[in-house]
């Protein structure tokens, strides 16, 4: 642990650790194999309130800071980052409706989530990933309603969600400024949940296609003014980038915990392998990267707590931490040797889980473009 934790933070971390290690960890290996996580297993997180930690109390949340929420989610990610991301996606969607929508929209969304339900964020399309402005999904005004049509893909919580924040072009001719966001009830006719992705990692997290076929929603479900959807998506991504970085820190810490334990037990040439300099260097480099990552995440969280948009900092954090996570988990497998490559041991899963962090919430290549463009602006 590298941060200065308050007594309250320590207590909350200990509580979540106990729950996650007792109630979730025993099932993780089997569920990773199956590529699913039953809804009942989320009961623990919902009962504890982990889906609404940083949501203000007037919306039924706990009103914690982003900083403390991140500490709790790092702990959860040590047990399983896929489990954790199902909850992160939910509260990031809710938070953005609260930030950009009307108080009524925020209340409506919060009431659904508070009962122990998931939310999804439908932005990506098969041909619009890094370039969301090229999306083809449309929202066409029809009286007091909008008719939504789109094929969305890689939607976290697709099958589990009760409510969706979806992005559609209200003005297909316009680029970014043609995108608007809508709150869509999962039960609205015309929503088709597609196949569940058979993913490399984060296999406890549910990821599906979501197709909108002439889905009719009231115009009052539009979040923010018409054409403000892209801005909302960017704000949401700033927030989720910081939070996925937290999960990556959790994955790394677990990798180090497992690696040190193993290196102390595993004997070759008559001594534990932790006594060999080359193993020592790997472990030390892992620890260095984890410490730096955690402090970086913490600083970004504190900046967000003080109201900063962290446009550049969020990208820097996500990119640095996810690149570290790929290296740290790969080295954990290396330290375990042949055993590390086996599914009998926990580290290969961490390596599979870590990879997506370089890809989602904007690939690290896109992040570097963002950082460079922010730099260009700063030095005008």
């Amino acid at each position: 642990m590298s941060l200065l934790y308050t007594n309250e933070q320590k207590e909350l971390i200990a509580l979540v650790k106990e729950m996650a290690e007792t109630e979730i960890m025993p099932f993780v290996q089997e569920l990773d194999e199956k590529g699913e996580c039953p809804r009942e297993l989320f009961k623990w997180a919902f009962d504890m309130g982990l889906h609404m930690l940083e949501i203000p109390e007037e919306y039924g949340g706990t009103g914690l800071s982003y900083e403390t929420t991140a500490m709790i989610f790092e702990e959860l990610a040590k047990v399983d980052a896929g489990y954790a991301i199902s909850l992160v996606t939910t509260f990031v969607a809710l938070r953005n409706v609260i930030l950009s929508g009307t108080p009524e929209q925020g209340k409506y969304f919060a009431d659904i989530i508070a009962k122990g339900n998931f939310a999804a964020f439908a932005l990506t399309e098969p041909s619009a990933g890094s370039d969301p402005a090229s999306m083809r999904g449309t929202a066409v005004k029809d009286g007091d309603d909008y008719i939504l049509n789109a094929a969305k893909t890689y939607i976290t919580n697709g099958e589990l969600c009760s409510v969706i924040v979806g992005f559609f072009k209200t003005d297909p001719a316009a680029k970014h400024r043609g995108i608007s966001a809508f709150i869509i009830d999962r039960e609205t006719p015309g929503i088709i949940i597609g196949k569940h992705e058979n993913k490399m990692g984060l296999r406890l997290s549910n990821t599906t296609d979501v197709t909108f076929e002439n889905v009719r929603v009231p115009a009052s479900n539009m979040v923010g003014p018409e054409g403000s959807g892209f801005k909302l998506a960017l704000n949401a991504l700033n927030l989720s980038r910081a939070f996925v970085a937290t999960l990556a820190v959790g994955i790394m810490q677990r990798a180090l915990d497992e690696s040190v334990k193993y290196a102390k037990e595993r004997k070759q040439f008559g001594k534990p392998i932790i006594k060999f300099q080359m193993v020592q260097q790997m472990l030390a480099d892992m620890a260095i990267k984890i410490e730096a990552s955690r402090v970086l995440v913490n600083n970004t969280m504190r900046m967000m707590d003080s109201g900063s948009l962290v446009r550049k900092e969020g990208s820097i954090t996500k990119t640095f931490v996810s690149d570290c996570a790929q290296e740290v988990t790969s080295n954990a497998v290396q330290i375990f040797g042949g055993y590390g490559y086996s599914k009998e041991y926990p580290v290969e899963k961490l390596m599979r889980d870590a990879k997506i962090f370089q890809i989602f919430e904007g690939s690290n290549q896109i992040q570097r473009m963002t950082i460079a463009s922010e730099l260009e602006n700063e030095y005008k």
Partner: protein
Amino acid sequence: MNIVVCVKQVPDTTEIKIDPVKNTLIRQGVPSIMNPFDKNALEEALQLKEEYGGTVTVISMGPQQAKATLRQALSMGADKAHLVTDRAFGGSDTYATSYILAKVIEKLGPFDVILGGKQAIDGDTGQTAPSIAEHLGIARLTHIRSIKIDGNKCIVEREIEEGIEIVEAKLPILCTATKETNKPRYATIKGKIDSLKAEIDDITLADLPNMDTTKIGLKGSPTRVKSTFTPKRQSCCEIFEIVDPRETAKVLFGKLAEAKLL
């Protein structure tokens, strides 16, 4: 419905070390937890409250550190918590402790249901909670599986060696819980935060004027610990040189029965 739960803070270890001079438990340096069976008792209380309404009060006798255990009870959903603490209570055995706790319960009451764990994992006596019922002159039912309230009586399922015993008793009642009674809940994040800020008051000797002070503390405790030790692990091997397998089986059976292993 008014419910009181007696909880004890215990060292979190099965490897309890014993002070070789004083013959008492060394508590320093060992992390403390709520006695696991008391957690089951608290869970039962919270479930009763959810079903029948009322309040759940938690009491614990011990030093100031025991407030951590009371806070944990509050974080799980208890309404009130009191620490029973006074230098005069120090050194109390199960008789003196149960007498003091009975007096506290009388002061805070009346209660319909008093709950405790079947025993504490440190002392393992299992005497304190049942003795409270004796001091209060009320019925007690130990090792319960469930409680149902029906007007001024309750129907309790008890675990006994032969099976399950179903007993009806008049309220107020004292019950002790086991691991089988329920699965204790986790605190909510909000409950945990609130519990850290909660005020927990001390109940001292001065708050209990009806106390017979000859029955409390080390002097009021009839129990004297003569000696405490860790039994030595011994293993030995006996070889029977019998040719007839029937005879071998017979001898072996006799030996195992003698050692109470059958």
